[in-house]
């Protein structure tokens, strides 16, 4: 019975084919990721990270298909904010509005912040964004192995 579909390893009941993120939503999410870098970073987010973001989003969706709707929601929330305040202020509002940190989130803007933008922040930092703030390694960053003379974090000898 191994071949039966009901034996498939699953985190949820959705068919993976039904829950793929569209190119348009991904482009919007990539823009959000770039804006995180612009707002907090001192160096620009490089194009190479597109794949990391896509893998991350697909992994989140694979764990819980409701992320598909969260990414769609984030895209719509951002469009509205930009329409209302312009690009810079729109993103700033999403990133810094202290009134949308209620747990669990109760508005669509709060959901966009907590389920999407704040998660992207973790990804952004784990891909090296922390380096602008002084460290050589950080939680989630694949710093590399412990090789003598090439320690992947700040040591007392460096």
């Amino acid at each position, binding site marked *: 019975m191994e071949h039966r579909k009901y034996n498939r390893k699953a985190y949820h009941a959705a068919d993976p084919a039904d829950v793929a993120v569209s190119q348009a939503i991904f482009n919007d999410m990539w823009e959000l990721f770039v804006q995180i870098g612009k707002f907090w970073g001192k160096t620009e987010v490089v194009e190479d990270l597109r794949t990391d973001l896509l893998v991350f989003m697909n*992994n989140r969706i694979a*764990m819980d298909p409701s992320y598909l709707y969260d990414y769609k929601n984030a895209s719509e929330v951002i469009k509205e904010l930009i329409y209302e305040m312009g690009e810079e202020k729109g993103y700033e509002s999403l990133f*810094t509005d202290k009134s949308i940190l209620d747990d669990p989130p109760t508005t669509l803007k709060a959901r966009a912040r907590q389920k999407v933008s704040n998660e992207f922040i973790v990804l952004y930092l784990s891909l090296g964004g922390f380096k602008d703030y*002084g460290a050589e390694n950080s939680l989630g960053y694949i710093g590399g192995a*412990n090789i003598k003379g090439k320690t992947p974090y700040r040591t007392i000898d460096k």
Partner: protein
Amino acid sequence: MKKQVDILIIGSGAAAASLSQRLLEKDPNRSILVLEAGIKVPMKDYKLYQDYLVTGTYPYQFCEDLNYPSIFGNGENVPVGGNQLQLSGGRAMMFGGSTAHWGGWSFRLKPEDFQLYTNTQIEGTIDWPISYDDLEPYYGQAEDYIGVSGDSTDQVPPRTTKYPFCEFPYTLEDQGTIEAFEKLGLDYAHMPIARHGISDTDSPHAPCKTTGTCKYCPFGARYFAGNFLDEMLKYGSFPNFEILQGAIVDRITMSSRSKATGAVYHDKFTTDSHTVEAETVIVAAGSIEAAKLMQRSVTPEWPEGVGNQKNNNLVGKNLVSHPFVYWEATLPENPQRLQPEMDFPTFISRHFDSKEQQPFGKFLTVRLNSFSDQFNMTTNNQVSTLTKAMQTGLNREEIDAVTTGPLNVQLITQVEVFTKTSNYVSNTAPNVINHLGMQETNVHYVPDSGFENRLDQIQTLLNPVFNEMGATNFRKASDSIRADHAACVTRMSDTPETGVVDKDLKVFDTDNLYVLSNGSFSSLGAINPTITLTALSLRLGDHLNSK
């Protein structure tokens, strides 16, 4: 149908994994059955890893005990003697056991630990029936097996072999602590840590890449017994090695006072009961469950449960673990923007883990991650100051101020406490079942009346360290005791008057029943137990192989 095997091992943690490895190295065809109450949780899964990264929830959390019942909600287990020793978070009941969430701190006991009673004359304590020298060769083998990165020149305690991998250098965050320790003439050392390094030989274990998410390592670089068992099953060519999951052992069976014949277990999903017959039975179910299983195994010859001698009923008694005490102080500024760059500590001190301190409760000192004064995140290593600052919406200038502003520095101490028969674990009524389908636990743990006083002494000893660092507002942030290092409940001794197992871990008065867990330690010392457990396991393997 009855299953018949040569060796039955109950539990699939580090004890079971290292023992079966040693037995199968000698005879790959040996029939070994491992019965594990828990189930397998996927490891090295990138989706689960990223989920842990962003949420801080690790996928095997459901395998831990719930909190004790309280006014805030339903829970499980019964804190009989007050609410002192927490089970929740203190063990993982799953394929591979508690090393799923261990830190990998890999210390050996010191020679004086084996002579606790001789050195201190404290009532209720005993000496180990073996010495440090007896265990020393096995410590080296255990470090090789687990894959410890450490400083091979460190001779405290003495060692005759090298660690398999070199030590992780001190981080920049360690600097202030090191300078303070040096000024005060206090000893310190590198953390011996169970992280694989780069090796010249072929190894199925990836080296640590310092990602700092060790509670769920995406590469399997931190030792986890479940990964090792998986590899044995996949690549080991051990045709008669089998592990059953969801197999909860209800009792050990005996045909006489001296002969164990196997065990009865039930399938947690179907509830069907099964019998296994075995030549040798090893209880490797973790300290607490091992003791409870023995208490449940009542036979005509063992009316109080196997291992319980008539006059003392020691199985389950003498419960100890380590109080973890967090000490904090605040540095006025952080010009180097010190922040956690690693998920595990690199600086430790065994200065007060000494023969001089032994009568009062010796203690290990470890430097933990520092964190910005702005956020109350003492023990949460998962979220960095930077993450927290960005997620709460601080802008770049504000974050610059936070990362260079006041910094909380912390040391943790792990204190030895002494065995007393009045502290114990036992089974609740048979029908009181936890969320994993296992019988719940009564925990009776009352700390010594002098413990608060000991904390004051420790504070006095550490005060100069924080002073030298220039940190102010030195304070005890918290102290708690959890089952992480629960031990001594089936302790090893020279005689059944004071212990449950002999120096070969064999239950007194039996021929073929062994208890392999931290419960079999005669005393706990001030350090984390797993390297000692693994050394005992490999020694037991040699003992069984020589039979």
